């Protein structure tokens, strides 16, 4: 039998689902049978389909198994590897049709994706540089080193690539500014802070294909004339840091990094800085302050980092995904890159699909795909057959879009117009059980907590807005609260020092724009129809479903539930403290909120 390769997804998601234990089981079962040397067992980066993890793929035939547990391995070897009989029960099962398939390209989740940046993620061993080289890795660097610096910058400009870190600034222009600023020392900085809670694409790229990011940074360094770079990574990402370190060492050994790169006389070194947990450090000037060892507080711009950045030197700062696009552009050409996407947003974007969606995970799609295609075709629709309500895009700086906008083609400009923003690319899907006022309150709690306190509008303003939202969700809202929130939101937007404050009101403004009735309902009728805001709901027992098992009466801490055995029970809402214990205990879903 020919040499076969078995790939385990070893992204953070699959590791916490137990991928390493399954791998160990496979290896020991192979050893037991004395056939270990006929198989290459590889740990890859994130394959994107975290929902179904742990994932396993057998090459060359590309058979895709999911949810693989250690105890499945013996069967997998005896049935499939040795006898070619596919283990049906471990194949992906379509939640709608119930059909199983071994070809992952037939699964809706993958079929509609365009995996350009992620083409190596889940395919190669990220800790082995030879595998990266084997998929055309570092070819772009070789080509770039033979080009004029300005020609590289022109190519990036022509590609139409815009920054993937949030604002969507044209990357080529940023490079040109940094190139043109005179200076004997310049820096490249990669922003891997990924502070948006609900986004993990940068993490997956770093864990799955770290060399692509390094290659992008080295090319940038050569183009703008920098000899040193920093990657600023969140400390919550230990695996990404580990794989980056390995990648840097290997790239140095192979002469792609260090001094006299590939004999061209170009020197470039890359350092890693671990962040220390502050959302605002994702903002570029705060990030630079943090690398310098100071409190991570933003400063006014201009001067932009391209003029005066790290230690006052011209600095080109880009996001992880932005850098990961660079080798692609140089290798395949700007035209090929620009053939994907929309008029003003070129290429692909990686989205992190999470929330109340069937297929959570990472999906890379061409710019301009509609929200509906992403959520329903790739994401497999809403969990538990519930109704779609809204999707929050761009994290705490972004906004939420309602069902009416599902057909909006997604690009930088259409999102901004709709009151959201691309941000990092986090897509959190919400169903009918999400209260939009509570969601706005959630985001404000986050931004208020993370406000660094340097400027007054953000420090005080987010606090006042949060107080108003807390009042409303507690049922103490007043009719003047909505106009007050709107006024505050707009002035904070206009007057804050950095992007954190300028975008913090977005969740409020967009929920007010699309879900104003929910605010009104809370304030005027004292109702929360999603059943989330505790003060505004009452617990009841559905007499039809209640079997009178008495389980709830036993857990109720205040004896609010009465009723005879085998008879439907009742909750005395005067006594009930809304702790939810009965609801959690009930096996028949008989406890309901009104």
């Amino acid at each position, binding site marked *: 039998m020919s040499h076969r390769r078995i790939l385990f997804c070893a992204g*953070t*998601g699959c*590791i*916490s*689902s137990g991928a390493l234990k399954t791998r160990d089981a496979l290896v020991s079962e192979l050893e037991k049978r004395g056939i270990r040397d006929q198989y290459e067992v590889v740990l890859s980066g994130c394959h994107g389909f*975290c*929902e179904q*993890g742990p994932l396993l793929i057998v090459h060359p035939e590309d058979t895709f198994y999911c949810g693989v547990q250690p105890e499945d391995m013996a069967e997998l070897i005896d049935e499939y590897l040795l006898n070619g009989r596919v283990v049906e029960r471990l194949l992906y099962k379509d939640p709608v049709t119930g059909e199983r398939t071994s070809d992952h390209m037939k699964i809706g989740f993958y079929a509609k994706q365009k995996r350009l940046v992620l083409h190596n993620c889940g395919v190669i061993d990220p800790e082995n540089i030879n595998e990266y080289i084997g998929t055309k890795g570092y070819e772009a660097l070789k080509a770039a080193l033979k080009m004029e610096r300005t020609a590289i910058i022109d190519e990036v400009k022509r590609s139409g690539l815009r920054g993937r870190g949030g604002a969507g600034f044209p990357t080529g222009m940023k490079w040109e500014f940094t190139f043109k600023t005179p200076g004997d020392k310049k820096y490249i900085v990669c922003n891997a802070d*990924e*502070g*948006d*809670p*609900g*986004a*993990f694409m940068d*993490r997956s790229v770093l864990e799955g294909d770290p060399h692509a990011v390094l290659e992008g940074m080295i090319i940038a360094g050569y183009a703008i004339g920098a000899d040193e770079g920093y990657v600023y990574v969140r*400390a*919550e*990402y*230990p695996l990404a840091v580990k794989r980056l370190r390995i990648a840097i060492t290997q790239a140095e050994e192979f002469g792609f990094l260090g001094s006299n790169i590939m004999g061209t006389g170009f020197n470039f070194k890359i350092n890693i*800085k*671990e*962040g*220390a*947990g*502050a*959302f605002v450090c994702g903002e570029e000037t705060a990030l630079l302050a*943090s*690398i*310098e*060892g*100071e*409190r*991570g*507080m933003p400063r006014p711009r201009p001067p932009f980092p391209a003029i005066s950045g790290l*230690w006052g030197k011209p600095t080109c700062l880009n996001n992880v995904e932005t850098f990961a696009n660079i080798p692609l552009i140089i290798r395949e050409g700007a035209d090929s890159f620009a053939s994907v996407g929309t008029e003003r947003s070129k290429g692909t974007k990686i989205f*992190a699909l*999470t*929330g*109340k969606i069937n297929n*959570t*995970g990472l999906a890379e799609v061409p710019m301009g795909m509609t929200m509906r295609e992403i959520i329903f075709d790739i994401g497999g629709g809403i969990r538990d057959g519930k109704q779609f309500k809204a999707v*929050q895009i761009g*994290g*705490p700086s972004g906004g939420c879009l309602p069902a009416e906008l599902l057909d909006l083609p997604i690009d930088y400009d259409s999102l901004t117009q709709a009151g959201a923003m691309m941000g990092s690319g*986090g897509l*959190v899907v*919400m169903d009918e059980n*999400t209260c939009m006022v509570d*969601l706005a309150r*959630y*985001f404000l709690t*986050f931004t208020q907590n993370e406000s*660094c306190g340097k400027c007054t509008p953000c420090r005080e303003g987010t606090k006042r807005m949060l107080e108003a939202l807390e009042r409303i969700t507690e049922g103490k809202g007043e009719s003047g609260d909505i106009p007050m929130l709107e006024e505050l939101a707009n002035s904070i937007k206009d007057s804050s020092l950095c992007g954190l404050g300028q975008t913090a009101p977005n969740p409020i403004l967009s929920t007010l724009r699309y879900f104003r009735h929910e605010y009104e309902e809370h304030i005027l009728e004292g109702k929360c129809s999603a059943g989330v805001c505790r003060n505004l709901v009452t617990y009841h027992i559905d007499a039809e479903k209640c079997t009178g098992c008495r389980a709830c009466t036993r857990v109720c801490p205040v004896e609010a539930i009465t009723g005879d055995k085998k008879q439907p029970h009742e909750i005395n809402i005067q006594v009930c403290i809304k702790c*939810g214990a009965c609801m*959690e205990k009930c096996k028949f879903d008989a406890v309901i909120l009104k």
Partner: protein
Amino acid sequence: MKEALKCYTEDPFDYGPVDSVLAKYKDQKGATIPILQAVQDEYGYLPYQALERIAKVLKVPFSRIFGVATFFAQFHLQPRGENIIRVCLGTACHVRGGAKIVEKLQEILQLDVGGTTADRKFTLESVACIGACGLAPVMMINNDTFGRLTTQKLAGIIENYGKETE
């Protein structure tokens, strides 16, 4: 933040670990954060005396070091438990019921978020996203990630780390 101002002090204090960290980083520029990270790795938190020593050796005002140490969520001025439980309250976890997980953990451990049990076995903290959103709701205990949590699963998981539950 008022809590933070009450730095925990130890007497007598062992300066060995902080001095060896300082010896390693002394000549690097912008090393404040890596130094604090390394010192915290040694002591488990940032003792007052260690901060004083860092300020003295780096020849910067104590307030600068203190300012950095209190700015970042990662740094702790109080001793923490043997096991650090970090519950995710990121967006993805929030919409899938992260708040319920925190409440249940508070109940099991009889702790507020940020607190440490009297026997110093557990510290309960919250984080905003650990990047495993696909498995929401999620928590980390030390370096292990636990996904797809339900309130029923918690007691069992924590028991494995040495907490007796009835």
